[in-house]
């Protein structure tokens, strides 16, 4: 079993950490450097956790648990206007990032109001690209309940965060956290921090359900293995966008053009297979400069093999 953890510290002697991760057969999932500080999200064999912890302590950093590592979550507000941003949407996103997730803050194009609020198919498809989505609605119960209709057809696990306790919409969301409405200030008091943790716990629970489903029919390869493969591909290696490869529970988002690189990515070999055979590769709905790789499950690959007469 692999365990995901995060190193948080300086860059001093960080090479030793990367060497150890490689030696024990682990993988670096995410690396963020800010000035002299470094945070590394890594996946390492369970048995080597103590050795990693000891090394991190030795080089002056600390090890944190990151239960949401390897996930990408969308935090969706009705708009990106000042009524909804930056608080509490950015506070929620920040707290999820602290637990290891990659977060994206989105606003709907026509999500304001009650009767006139809309969501279009493209927005729904974009939200579906993420492992989970957190919807942030406001202070009025009636309005929260009415707006739920907008999110009915979304397949990604949904967590609703709103002010009042809504009624009759439990089936529309995987989790509902109430007590957070429109805010003017950062959520920094103790009860507010507790509420942010409650939201992160709800997201964690929702994703653990998705993980359980994946465990029943595991992916053909782990996303981290494809990530390692892609890191050696020059356009990805040279990509200047933040986090050129983002891991999902069942695949990856790679920030290189779909049309230009699809063929090369499909032809990459993993466990003697072409990536195109064991994954579904599609352009991101956000724009053409990213592609989505969804890894097929073992049963899906077997099914495809039977159909192809292999």
């Amino acid at each position: 079993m692999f365990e995901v953890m995060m190193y948080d510290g300086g860059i001093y002697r960080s090479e030793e950490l990367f060497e150890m991760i490689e030696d024990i057969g682990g993988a670096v999932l995410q690396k963020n450097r800010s000035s002299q500080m470094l945070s590394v999200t890594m996946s390492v064999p369970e048995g080597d956790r103590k050795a990693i912890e000891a090394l991190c302590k030795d080089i002056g950093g600390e090890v944190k648990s990151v239960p949401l590592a390897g996930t990408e979550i969308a935090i969706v507000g009705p708009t990106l206007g000042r009524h909804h941003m930056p608080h509490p949407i950015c506070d929620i996103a920040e707290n999820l990032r602290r637990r290891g997730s990659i977060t994206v803050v989105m606003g709907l194009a026509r999500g304001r109001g009650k009767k006139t609020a809309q969501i279009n198919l493209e927005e729904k498809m974009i939200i579906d690209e993420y492992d989970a989505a957190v919807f942030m609605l406001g202070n009025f119960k009636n309005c929260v309940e009415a707006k739920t209709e907008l999110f009915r057809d979304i397949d990604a696990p949904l967590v609703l965060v709103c002010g009042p306790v809504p009624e009759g919409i439990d089936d529309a969301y995987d989790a509902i956290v109430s007590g957070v409405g429109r805010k003017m200030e950062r959520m920094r008091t103790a009860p507010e921090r507790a509420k942010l943790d409650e939201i992160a716990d709800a997201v964690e629970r929702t994703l653990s359900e998705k993980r359980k489903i994946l465990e029943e029919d595991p992916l053909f390869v782990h996303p981290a293995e494809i990530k390692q493969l892609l890191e050696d591909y020059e356009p990805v290696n040279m990509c200047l966008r933040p986090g050129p490869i983002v891991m999902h529970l069942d695949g990856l988002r790679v920030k290189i053009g779909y049309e230009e690189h699809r063929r090369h990515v499909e032809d990459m070999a993993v466990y003697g297979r072409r990536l195109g055979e064991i994954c579904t590769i599609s352009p991101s709905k956000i724009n053409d400069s990213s592609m989505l790789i969804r890894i097929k499950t073992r049963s899906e690959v077997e099914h495809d093999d039977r159909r192809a007469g292999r």
Partner: protein
Amino acid sequence: MDVNIISEDEYGDRSYSDLFTRIMADINKLSLIEKATLVLKPTVPLFIFSVRMRAEPSSKTVADAANARSEGANVHLTITDERYAPSILEQLWKKFGRESVDQQTRFDLDVIGASESEVKALLVASDEESVNDMIGAIWRTMPEGIKNRRTFIDGRTITVVATEEIMEPYMLEEGMKIHTAEGV
């Protein structure tokens, strides 16, 4: 400031009182408001926000927001109301040029080669501007998307009636009733 909430939504009632106060404080308008009445009917939706200000908005000159005294050929200004500091500086630059305005501290500055009466008479905020600022502040506190709005202004009271689609006559009547009750 006294905030009176008339609401059909329990959570909205509690949170809007706090939200209104915080937003007004954030944009520096809280001290201008004596009392406010907020009618929240999200089911309609209809929102009536009525505020009674401490004083009727009037034009402000430099003399209202700063102490001025002649010092030889110059005028020394000490800004007493920080809200008008950016506007004072802007007007002085416009009238006398940047090179003639020597700002020593946040609130102290010399205007070189100016007369005291000339500086004191400079307009730093018009009454219309103050009213517009207050209306803007009220819009900011209202929920987003409630864009069909009508405004009543009388003396010290400003009332904004807002709905999402068609403004029905009964909504305006209700708004006027709140406006009158708030006191003109």
